[in-house]
């Protein structure tokens, strides 16, 4: 191999390495702090790994804090949002991809506009709307709000997957004796699994890490999701970094598991959607 080419490959790999280190360093720091005993946290200076490690923070977080409740709430909210949004986005994405109807242009424009608002602007009006309905301080309220915010983008994502599936397939199914809905369910949906996985993953993580609305709409510990719960480790006089980071590490687990499960579809899905959409 010529030295020039070797150098190029080296630079390429080097750049990737730098990027990966840069992206993963905060996660590493999270892990490092979570296993550092409290007494070493400030006394050892900046070290890449503490001289002694401990699991006491994890123990505390699991056994003595409200973290399990936060975790359960987050799981319910994110899971429900992901399922609700994916179902709605599949149906609306299919409609946008396959049907031509009068208000189509305006509906698409409207959905795009909803994506342009800074969410902060909407906190007060949404609180005002949810409050009389008894939906503040409730997981249902959060699911509704998250679903509303995620449906437009998820719809466009699903639409690009449906666009990539030839129309001939449904037409063949309809001639074979299926109604349009049966053709959608039996022929098109199975072929859109990568897209569904991508949408589920996207919405799940978006809801899992959402802080602003969770903070504004939820006041007690009972309905708090984990990003809100993390703030309970910050008290007036101190921050329990060890426990906070331990909770953070635990909170990463479901998201990681989820992506591990769907990554096969996701890679296929994101590229397929990108090229064909």
């Amino acid at each position, binding site marked *: 191999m010529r030295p020039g080419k070797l150098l190029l490959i080296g630079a390429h790999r080097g750049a990737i390495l730098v990027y990966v280190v840069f992206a993963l360093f905060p996660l590493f720091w999270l892990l490092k702090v979570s296993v550092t005993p409290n007494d070493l946290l400030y006394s050892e200076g900046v070290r890449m790994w503490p001289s002694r490690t401990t699991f006491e923070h994890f123990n505390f977080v699991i056994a003595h804090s409200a973290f399990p409740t936060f975790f359960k709430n987050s799981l319910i909210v994110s899971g429900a949002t992901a399922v609700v949004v994916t179902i709605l986005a599949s149906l609306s994405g299919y409609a946008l991809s396959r049907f031509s109807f009068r208000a189509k242009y305006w509906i698409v424009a409207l959905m795009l506009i909803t994506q342009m608002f800074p969410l902060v602007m909407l906190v007060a009006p949404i609180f005002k709307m949810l409050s009389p309905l008894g939906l503040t301080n409730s997981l249902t309220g959060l699911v509704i709000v998250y679903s509303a915010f995620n449906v437009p983008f998820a719809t466009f994502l699903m639409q690009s997957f449906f666009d990539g599936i030839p129309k001939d397939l449904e037409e*063949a199914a309809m*001639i*074979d004796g299926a109604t349009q809905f049966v053709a959608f369910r039996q022929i098109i949906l199975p072929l859109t699994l990568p897209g569904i996985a991508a949408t589920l993953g996207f919405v799940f993580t978006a809801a899992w890490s959402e802080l602003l609305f969770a903070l504004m709409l939820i006041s007690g510990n009972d309905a708090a999701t984990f990003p809100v719960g993390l703030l309970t480790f910050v008290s007036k006089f101190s921050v329990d970094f060890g426990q906070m980071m331990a909770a953070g590490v635990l909170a990463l687990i479901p998201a990681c598991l989820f992506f591990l499960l769907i990554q096969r579809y996701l890679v296929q899905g994101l590229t397929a959607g990108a090229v064909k959409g």
Partner: protein
Amino acid sequence: MASIDIESVRKSYGPFPVLHGVDLTIRDGEFIVLVGPSGCGKSTLLRMIAGLEEVTSGDIRISGNRVNDLAPKDRDIAMVFQSYALYPHMSVADNMSYSLRLRKTAKEKIASAVGGAAAKLGLEPLLERRPKALSGGQRQRVAMGRAIVRKPKAFLFDEPLSNLDARLREQMRAEIKKLHADLKATSIYVTHDQIEAMTLADRIVAMHGGVVQQVGSPLELYDTPANLFVAGFIGSPGMNFLEGRYVVPGEGKGAGIRLSDGTVVPVASRTGIGPDATVTLGIRPEHVVISDTGMLEASVDLVEPTGFGIILHLSLHGLPFKIFTLDREALSAGPTVRVDFPQKYLHVFDDKGDRVG
């Protein structure tokens, strides 16, 4: 099996008309080929029969029943798509049995129907495979199998062979013809390939610009094309056209066409056409005779040996002109040749392009 009647069928997309009133009766068991260039409306007509496009006005009847408002699934027709449209997540057997499963047919019946169709098409060893593990020709067969597995009232084919290579296309063409002879099913076949049209059809429907130009047996269209479009579209290499003026018979001379250089090409006398009327003379490349005493001289631009015969590309009065001959001597044609037009092979079209006489 069924007859299909198409009565004054029109189709517009918004303000744009694509079919301008088509009338056609397809008899029970007939093999009809819709042929024409891209955009002539042939696929649209097929899709309207299938129920995949709405009918703007007019009626479509299958076995006498108006089907305009019936969903595709209720029309009991089968269709083979250009893209094959096989379900990628199903095995060949599942692809073929899908329509029967939707109809809740008994398992044993499905197995025997799929087995029968697979045997007919030589698909037995492939039944468990997914479509992506098949070659183009095999996919085509599966698409055919999916159509014949339930016995529909009619088969619709939308350019089913255009994704295959030449050899495979020829083979599948013969198989489709055999299959039709075997099943005797009413079939409508859309293609832009006139060889497919000529070889498969009981009757050809030539379409252009959303209008049916001529309906007839392949040889009728070949021998007596109704207008310039059909004359030029059917046949390969295509018919030669020369502009001229009609000379009425008289003073001991027969009728003729006077070409731009003054040469009068004798033609049989025609009625319904006035003296000196502008006409187009047509002659097929294989009917032109090369002869030392020929009345017209043409310069040779190009000699194309096809193996089977030879195509001579000529310039006649500055216009392109082709000759097809089996005579190998044509390979050594000089810079010019003299040609004759036998009267019985001449076609005359009036200034509107319609056949005269």
